[in-house]
């Protein structure tokens, strides 16, 4: 029955994440509503992630323009570079790459912070002080991330398109007016919204995974290290796998 043991780890991961997600949903409507905590987390997740997300989007847009220009010029279709860069950014790349970067920044931080609180008995102390740790710690983090991710990705969309424009027009010498025209010519509202819905789902998943990893930490400093690493790896896997199913579902 060795295949059962092989399944044990992914099943346990899935179980923990589902359990934490369930408790987040159950506790969200209950008072007290800690708006201060929510705003604080929105700043930490959202505002502080702006540079890293924009840099990722900028260079992705620039590289996409270079690659697609090279390939399309082989059959004389350089005129479509703008459309392809724009659609690829908006539908797919900004959300996935942005979410992966934020998983590296924030899921790890949540894993480390909650993990430290677990091993130093701060989570037990919350329970003892008649406060549910999921309610107090996890609910604001999860909703802050879920709200902030689509906003960050909307910015990333714009910056990615600008990166493509910059390379095409300045480096490759494309016509700026036609480039912008072709960028938006085939783009529909659905392309934009589907990318942002993905971003929100990724935000929910990466924060729940990060918090779950921290919440279930055991074994001192080494355990915190393990939780931090696993938070990033597991969150990234969740993002990549769910991306496939979300894409299949929405298109």
């Amino acid at each position, binding site marked *: 029955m060795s295949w059962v043991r092989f399944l044990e780890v992914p099943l346990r991961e899935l179980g923990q994440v589902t359990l934490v997600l369930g408790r987040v949903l159950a506790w969200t409507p209950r008072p007290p509503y800690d708006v201060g905590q929510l705003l604080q987390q929105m700043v930490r997740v959202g505002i502080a992630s702006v540079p890293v997300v924009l840099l990722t989007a900028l260079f992705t847009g620039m590289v996409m323009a270079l690659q697609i220009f090279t390939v399309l010029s082989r059959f004389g279709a350089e005129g479509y570079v703008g459309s392809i860069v724009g659609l690829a950014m908006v539908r797919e790349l900004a959300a996935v790459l942005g979410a992966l970067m934020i998983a590296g920044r924030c899921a790890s931080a949540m894993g480390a912070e909650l993990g430290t609180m677990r091993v130093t008995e*701060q989570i037990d*102390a919350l329970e003892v002080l008649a406060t*549910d740790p999921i309610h107090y710690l996890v609910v604001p983090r999860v909703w802050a991330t879920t709200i902030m991710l689509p906003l960050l990705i909307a910015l990333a969309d714009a910056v990615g398109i600008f990166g493509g424009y910059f390379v095409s027009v300045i480096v490759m010498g494309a016509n700026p007016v036609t480039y912008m025209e072709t960028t938006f010519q085939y783009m529909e509202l659905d392309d934009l919204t589907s990318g942002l819905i993905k971003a929100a789902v990724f935000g929910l998943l990466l924060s729940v995974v990060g918090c779950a990893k921290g919440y279930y930490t055991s074994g001192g400093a080494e355990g915190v290290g393990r939780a931090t690493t696993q938070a990033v790896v597991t969150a990234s896997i969740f993002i990549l796998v769910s991306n496939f199913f979300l894409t299949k579902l929405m298109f």
Partner: protein
Amino acid sequence: MAVPSHRSEIKIHVRELRKSFGAKEVLRGVDLDVRAGESLVILGGSGTGKSVLLKHLIGLLHPDAGKVEVDGVDLSTLDHAELIDFRRRYGMSFQEGALFDSMTVHDNIAFPLRRSRPKRSRREIDTRVADCLDLVGLEGQGPKMPSELSGGMRRRVGFARAIALEPDILLFDEPTTGLDPVMTAVIDDVILHLKESLGSTSVTITHDLNSAFRIADRIAMIHRGTILAIDEPEAFRSTEDPRIRQFLDGRAQGPLTDT
């Protein structure tokens, strides 16, 4: 020191409590009654299951078998939200303080006050926090962060946070370990004062014998996951039980250390 009569009401009732972590059996059938208003001290060496027992009394750990009843309520019958709410009648301090390291000392002690009902005014909270800091000899330390404090100071802040709401049941996990003799006496006095002025029931884990004999109405000794003996301090001190004698006399050789 007033000793509660044997007919007095039972506050915490523990029966046949068992708990294992993996293959390690930590509690092997603990029976314990804590009387209302008494100060019970649990003695025992390291790794004998003292902290695990204490965490069962407040539902932080759930028994594999047996039951814990507090005020006649079996903790295992409460769902998660009810258990969280039930804990309003407790205060508990942890071995290393377990202070919230993202908050100042003041906010740590104010935390239970701000979240309790009925709502208190800011001034009431500030006054109570200052009083609690005074009680544990940390006047004016409110604005500091826990990382700026020594281990002993953190422990005292944790103690202050536990008593801030003047709860009905107090659980202290080694409140005086690592404190100097004067501070130990101060903490002991606070525990006695709470018992006398509020009638709080307290369960204190310690291996500080002086402290134990000072604050205890009764002393229980735990060894290898069971209660060896439970008795009043005087009877405890003069016991003939060789296992308790070894602990009280602090000898390396004896029945406790023979395997």
